[in-house]
C-alpha cells in the first residue's frame, strides 16, 4: 500500500526573490533520489504539498512546466507560519514535496484551440507552467493563437520579469502586461486593471477560444462580466481555486465546495461546474 502522506525529500537548489517588496520568492527544488522525479510526473495546473519537517505542510501550485527537467519550481508569497519559515530557508536545505496533487488544465480539450490566459497578482504560478508548456517546440503547433494578459500592482511586483519580456518579444504569443499604476516614463506596457485590459485586448470568445483565469477574487469578479461580453460561454472559462487544505487527497474534509473536493476533484474547474456548486471558496 503506497503511503500518500510521505513526501519526497528534496534539496533547495536555488532561491530567487521575485518582487521589489521581497514578499515573493521562487524556490527551485532538486529531488534527493533521482527516481522520485519520475514518480512526480505532473501536468501544468497541478499543485503539491511543500513539507517542512517540524513546521508544517502547505499546498502550492507547481510553477515549473513538465517540459522543464531536472527540477521543480514554486513561487511562494510570505504570509503565515509555513510560508514565513520557508522564506527564511537557504539554498542547500532539505525539505519535502508531496504530489503531484489535483487535476490540471484541460490540455486535451485545449488542443487545436485559441487560449487566452488571464492572471493577476501572484496567482500567476501555474499559468507560467502552462505558458512554458504551450511554448515548448513540441507543443506550440498544437494550439492556435495564445494571448496572455497579466497584471500586478506595479512593475516591481510582476513575477518572472525576464521571461515576461522574452515572451513579449515573440511573435507566436500575444503578451499584454499591465500594472495598476506606474510613473516610470520608460514603461512600455499597459497601465490599468486586468479586466479593462481584457476588454481592450482580449480575443472574442468564439467557439474555439478558451480562457484560463487565475487571480485574486476581486479580479475574477470584474473579469467575468467582461468575458461574458466578449462571448465566452461558462464551459469555456476555466478557473483554479485555492481553499485551505491539509491532506490534499480528498480525506481530511475541509476544502470541499459541495460534494467536490478542491484538492482532488479540482483545483481546476470550469465556470459552468462552479455555477453548480455552493460558492464556498
Amino acid at each position: 500500500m503506497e503511503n500518500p502522506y510521505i513526501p519526497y525529500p528534496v534539496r533547495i537548489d536555488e532561491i530567487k526573490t521575485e518582487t521589489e517588496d521581497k514578499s515573493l520568492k521562487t524556490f527551485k527544488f532538486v529531488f534527493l533520489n533521482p527516481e522520485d522525479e519520475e514518480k512526480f510526473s505532473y501536468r501544468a495546473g497541478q499543485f503539491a504539498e511543500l513539507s517542512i519537517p517540524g513546521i508544517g505542510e502547505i499546498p502550492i501550485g507547481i510553477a515549473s512546466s513538465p517540459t522543464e527537467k531536472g527540477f521543480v519550481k514554486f513561487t511562494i508569497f510570505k504570509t503565515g507560519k509555513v510560508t514565513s519559515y520557508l522564506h527564511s530557508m537557504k539554498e542547500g536545505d532539505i525539505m519535502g514535496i508531496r504530489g503531484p496533487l489535483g487535476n490540471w488544465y484541460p490540455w486535451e480539450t485545449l488542443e487545436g484551440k485559441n487560449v487566452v490566459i488571464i492572471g493577476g497578482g501572484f496567482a500567476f504560478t501555474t499559468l507560467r507552467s502552462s505558458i512554458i508548456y504551450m511554448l515548448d517546440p513540441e507543443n506550440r503547433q498544437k494550439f492556435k493563437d495564445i494571448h496572455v494578459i497579466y497584471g500586478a500592482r506595479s512593475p516591481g511586483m510582476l513575477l518572472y520579469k525576464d521571461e515576461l519580456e522574452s515572451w513579449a518579444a515573440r511573435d507566436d504569443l500575444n503578451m499584454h502586461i499591465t500594472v495598476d499604476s506606474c510613473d516610470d516614463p520608460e514603461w512600455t506596457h499597459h497601465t490599468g486593471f486586468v479586466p479593462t485590459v481584457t476588454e481592450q485586448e482580449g480575443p472574442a470568445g468564439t467557439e474555439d477560444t478558451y480562457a484560463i483565469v487565475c487571480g485574486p477574487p476581486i479580479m475574477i469578479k470584474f473579469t467575468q462580466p467582461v468575458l461574458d461580453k466578449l462571448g465566452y460561454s461558462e464551459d469555456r472559462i476555466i478557473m483554479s481555486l485555492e481553499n485551505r487544505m491539509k491532506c490534499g487527497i480528498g480525506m481530511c474534509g475541509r476544502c470541499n465546495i459541495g460534494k467536490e473536493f478542491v484538492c482532488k476533484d479540482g483545483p481546476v474547474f470550469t465556470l459552468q461546474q462552479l455555477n453548480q456548486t455552493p460558492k464556498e471558496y
Partner: protein
Amino acid sequence: MKVIRIDKNDWAEGIEKIRKTYSLIGPVKEKFYHIFANLGSGQMPDMEFTNSRISPKYIIYPQSEIILKCSMNAEEEDYKIYREPEDKEYKEKAVLGIRPCDADSLPVVMRNFDTDEYKDPYWLRAFETTTLVGLACDAPCPSCFCTSAGSGPYNHKNLDVMLIDNKDHYLAEIITEKGEKLAEAAGWQDKAEGIADEIAKRKSDAESKIESNVHTDNLAKQPLLDLYEATSIWEKAAFACINCGTCTYVCPTCWCFDIQDEVYGREGFRIRNWDSCMYPLFTLHASAHNPRGTKLARLRQRFMHKLKYYVDKYENGIQCTGCGRCVRLCPVNIDIRRICNMMNSYDPETCTCEATVS
C-alpha cells in the same frame, strides 16, 4: 449461519484464552459513563451498558496519531526526511461489545479512507487487524433511529461475531472468518441448534422498540443547490448552535482531520488530529478570507455533508447510522432527525418543509 451458545460461566475463561492472540478492547465504566478502553489483564468488559457516550471510532482512528517521523539531528541520516514511524504496531485486536450501529459506521467511513486513487494506510491497517464482537441491542434509547439509517439493533452485517444476551448465556452468531478464528481461539464451540426463530423474534422485538426515524427517500432527488439555499431550514437551526463541535466529536461517522507538525527533543513528528467542520479555523485562509465564515455555513456543511453530499457522492445512503449520540449530547437540542426530515420534505417552490420528528 453458525450460532454458538456461550454459557456465561465460560465467558471469562474464553476471554482469557483470546487474550493470548488479541489485545482486547471493551466497554468499561469510567465515572458515570461507559467508554471503550483497553482491557488490562484480568479485566472483563462490562456488558451491562447501553452504549458509550463517545463513539468507539478511536479504536481504528485515534483522536491523535503520529503519521510521520524524522530526525531533527543534522548528524543523522534521516535528518528532516519524514518516514512512517517504524514502531507503529498493528497487533490483532478484538473489540468486545461494540453495538451494531457503531460497527455499521465503519464501511461508511471507509469510503472516505479507501478510494481508487489514494488509500489511508493507517486507517486501513487498523481496520484489517480488528475483529468486531458485537452485542445486539435489546433496549435502544429513545434518541436512536438506526433502523431508518441503514443500521439496526440486530444488524450483524458489519460484525465478525454478534452476541445476543440470553439470560445465563450468550447466543453468538459467527458471521465472518475473522469471527470463526476468534471463536476457535476462545474455545467456544457449543453449537446452538433450532434457535433461528427465536433470534428472529428477538430481532423484531428490538426493532419495534426504536421509537423515532428519519425519512431519506427524497434526499437524492432534491437538487443540491436548492437544499443549500434553503435558508428556512438553516437559519432556524443555526440560531442556537454554539459551534461547540460536540456533535462531530462523538459521532462515529465524522472523519475530518487536521495535520500538525511538532518537534520533541531531536525528533520531528507529523500528527493527525480529529478536526471539526464546526470550527472557523477549519477553513480559514491565510488571507483571513473564510469560505465558511458564519456558523450558519458551518452547521449547514455538517448536515449537507451527511445528508446530501455523501448521499450523492457514494449513492450508498446517508453518512449517519442513527446512533443518536449527537441528538443526546447537543447542548442546545439540535436534532439531526428533524433536520433530515426537513431536508427530505423541502419544497423549493414554497420554501417549506414538514418540521416534525416522526
